[in-house]
């Protein structure tokens, strides 16, 4: 019994055996681990058609959102574009709150009504709901609007990880595979990707739950949401443009396109050590104000397991 389990108190011979066995197991594990890491680091990613892979991650590079917390029109796109500020109510950071232009034809009637009610409440002085203000995860494409804190990329042959310092949120993109037939619904859904060229990564995401809006105008979405993102290096690798297409026949009358831009982190955001940034929904509601229709702490409708 003692020899089998290498517990304390066995004769010296068994101790020696256990010591040796432990070392052998350790060496074997180290070799296996080293081989796995070596294999992961040096296996060749499936490159784009021109044989090269865009490098979003070299030299511990970080990226930071540019130009504020709204989506922009994609240059050259003749479609309706994303929801933007209501004319006459342009957003100014730290001064007012976002009010949506619900005349955008992308909105189905129920979604327009929902956003009109929220506009009315905000214009009356109510507190608008932003997922980030309650430490909710951003979802897709919502997390593209995380301001300030840096974003990191890890590129391996089979996966690309996009890591957000904020609350250590992680998106995992599985490369060169098809979507599952019936993916589970989750905040970040199921993302598959491929390299389109030496400067562009394509990410296709489905399986997104509907537990938050997709922007700071409180645009809703359903579980039918389908997002295709194009991460493209610009300006000699100094910027990333993320142009994306959104489809959700439960909310939108048509697909629409938008984009955000990232720049290389500067100063403290330039690629220093990963800082712990905790943002967890707590038991206190700092926005308790029934007149504003404040949002309560989320409660699961059913167990996760």
């Amino acid at each position: 019994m003692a020899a089998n389990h290498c517990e304390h108190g066995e004769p010296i011979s068994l101790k020696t055996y256990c010591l040796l066995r432990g070392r052998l197991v350790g060496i074997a594990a180290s070799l296996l681990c080293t081989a796995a890491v070596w294999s992961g680091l040096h296996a060749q990613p499936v490159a784009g058609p021109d044989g090269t892979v865009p490098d979003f991650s070299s030299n511990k590079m970080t990226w930071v959102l540019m130009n504020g917390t709204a989506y922009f029109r994609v240059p050259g796109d003749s479609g309706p574009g994303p929801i933007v500020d209501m004319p006459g109510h342009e957003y100014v950071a730290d001064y007012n709150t976002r009010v949506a232009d619900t005349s955008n034809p992308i909105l189905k009637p129920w979604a327009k009504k929902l956003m009109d009610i929220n506009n009315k409440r905000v214009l009356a002085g109510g507190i608008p709901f932003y997922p980030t203000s309650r430490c909710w995860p951003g979802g897709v494409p919502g997390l593209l609007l995380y301001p300030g804190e840096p974003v990191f990329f890890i590129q391996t042959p089979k996966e690309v990880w996009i890591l957000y310092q904020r609350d250590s949120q992680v998106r995992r993109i599985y490369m060169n595979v098809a979507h599952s037939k019936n993916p589970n619904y989750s905040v970040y859904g199921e993302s598959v990707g491929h390299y389109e060229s030496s400067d562009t990564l394509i990410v296709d995401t489905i399986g997104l739950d509907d537990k938050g809006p997709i922007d700071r105008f409180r645009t809703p979405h359903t579980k039918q949401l389908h997002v295709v993102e194009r991460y493209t290096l610009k300006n000699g690798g100094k910027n990333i443009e993320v142009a994306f297409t959104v489809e959700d026949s439960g909310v939108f009358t048509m697909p629409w396109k938008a984009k955000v831009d990232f720049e290389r982190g500067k100063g403290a955001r330039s690629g220093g050590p990963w800082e712990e940034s905790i943002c967890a929904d707590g038991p206190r509601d700092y926005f308790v104000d029934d007149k504003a229709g404040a949002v309560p702490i989320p409660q699961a409708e059913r167990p996760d397991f």
Partner: protein
Amino acid sequence: MSVKATLRSTGMLAVTIVLLLGGGYAFAQSGGLNPRLSGDIVPAPNGYEAVAVKYIVTRSTDLYISPFIWAGKVLGVHLNAGKSVDALAKLNGYDWLLVGKNGTGIGYVPISALSPVK
């Protein structure tokens, strides 16, 4: 007549009575339920289906203007545990019920906060 058939016909009779008494239902062109909604209540994204009429609140809850907690409450209304409510419909694709008063929808509640009256 089997128990199952009896229950089924009883359920159909209940829905018919509700309809005849002006229980707030109309039928949309698509054939689904189309309940009346008070001013600030948002129509369900995917329509409605019939449910049992009476429910008891098992967990105190707010009423919501849509089946999304984040999108806002019905202002000034709160349902305490033990209260009896009329459910006008279940939302297709969502575990939420439309709660009504005098046949008009006044807000949405997660099913988990309610239990049907037996």
